[in-house]
């Protein structure tokens, strides 16, 4: 899925790549991401692509090393590695991110995310899962020496009606978290109009 929004008349678009750790369609995690992307596109021009790790197929799940992956999966990994902003979004399962989400990052090149802007977002069954962002997700990107955005975004099941995020406090936190880094986001934007990459072309069948 590829969407493009908010092309401005000045400045390049920020190439955002969402790595989605949810197996569900539709999902609360993507409901949260929708609000983040909407808020982001209100601040600067944005090009969005999304990688659903649960939909990458056997070419992904069967790969033990990077050399094993199919060309489609290779393209998805490249897409993540070359994003201006990586949006790592996942549900919390069994106290952490799901195994397939980790498997994706096990295949990402060790240095490809160094100094890369990464925004962390997670959903969980209750507020007591919120620190999985700090205790599980942030250390993963610390390994990569990525530049994680200071404010990570968490939403609980009760904050959603279905997959629509209703809690205004989380809308507020998204605004705050993105405003903190908006200058940096502008400085990192490399997207060119038009030609957004269509993920449907590179996703494994």
């Amino acid at each position, binding site marked *: 899925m590829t969407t493009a929004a908010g092309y401005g008349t000045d400045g390049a678009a920020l190439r955002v790549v969402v790595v989605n750790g949810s197996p569900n369609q539709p999902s609360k995690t993507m409901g949260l991401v929708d609000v983040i992307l909407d808020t982001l596109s209100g601040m600067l021009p944005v090009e969005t692509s999304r990688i659903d790790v649960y939909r990458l197929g056997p070419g992904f799940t069967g790969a033990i090393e990077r050399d094993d992956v199919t060309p489609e999966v290779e393209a998805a990994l490249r897409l993540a590695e070359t994003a201006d902003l990586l949006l790592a979004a996942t549900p919390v399962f069994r106290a952490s991110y799901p195994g397939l989400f980790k498997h994706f990052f096990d295949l990402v090149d060790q240095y490809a995310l160094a100094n890369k802007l990464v925004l962390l977002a997670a959903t969980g069954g209750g507020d007591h899962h919120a620190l999985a962002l700090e205790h599980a997700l942030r250390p993963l990107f610390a390994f990569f020496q990525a530049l994680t955005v200071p404010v990570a975004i968490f939403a609980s*099941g*009760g*904050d*959603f*009606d*279905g*997959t629509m995020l*209703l*809690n*205004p*406090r989380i809308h507020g936190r998204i605004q705050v978290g993105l405003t903190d880094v908006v200058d940096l986001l502008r400085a990192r934007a490399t997207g060119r109009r038009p030609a957004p990459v269509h993920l449907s072309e590179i996703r494994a069948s």
Partner: protein
Amino acid sequence: MAFEIGIMTFGELTEDIATGTLPSPRQRAREMIQQAQVADEVGLDIFGVGEHHRSDFVGSAPTVVLAAAAERTSRIRLTSSVTVLSSEDPVRVWEQFATIDLLSAGRAEMIAGRGSYTESFPLFGYDLRDYADLFREKLDLLLKIREQNPLTWQGRFRAPLVDADIAPRADGDTIPVWVGVGGSPASAISTGRLGLPMALALLMGPLTFHEPTVALYRDAAAKAGHDPDRLPISINVHGYVGRTSQQARDVMYPYFAKGMLDNNHQRGKGFLLSRAAFDAQTSPGAGLLVGSPQELIDKLLAYHELYGLNRALIQMGFGGLPQKEHLEAIERLGTEVAPVVRREVAARERRAA
């Protein structure tokens, strides 16, 4: 707004903690009607019947119980507490409540909820994955039925209605529909947006537990153009009115602990609520409405001040409280607690006006 006080029951069928025997369902069903009758006689404002679909409760069909209660009462309002609307047909729900409204000369109300248990979903052929969509759609239909007749309507979960004549209509202008909210921010916000009265549920925890819920509700209502000061809020909470503070706690504890053991699980098994943990829940800063009449007055007034609460529905039979103690507590609630709370709230509101 006048402050209203009532009781609610699920028709608990819990084995007696002393003898280990189960009350007969027939006896419990009759006892529910007797509770309504006494509540009416002592001047309480509302009688509520909840819905569980399990053999440890007789209350799976609240409308039938309410219809029976309508015949034995004259003033008390009759509400479900709650109707699990997500697994109901709103057309049938409306017909049943409108019938109760006619039988009771306009005393029917309902609290529409998602239910705190999920048994009704497979029973009536609904998929839990549609949890949010089911409630949204069915509430929408229910409100439209209330608003207009005949009705043309289309949705995902039932056949469309084309110029459908849905009868009977309410006895008076309308039937109040409240929405049950357990405390999730999203339910509070969507209820506020619709401008519907909110029925909060509190099991245990601090009196202040629902402060954020109420703030989100009022805020969402105001943003959607409703006047938040005109929207009633109620709380459904466990409690017991005793002769004295100590007697109330001593009577309520063993039954409440038994009810918790049967209904609240850790590691898939019930756990015993210790007396110390229970006593903590009865302190002035905690939500349970248990104690002497004066303690209940103080706590209800604290709830009123904190949330701008207009109504409290107290569940006193949890864990199989015997009927004798139950009726005594209903009487104290109606004669010693309710008149004082109503008077004090009215005085507060006069001062504020």
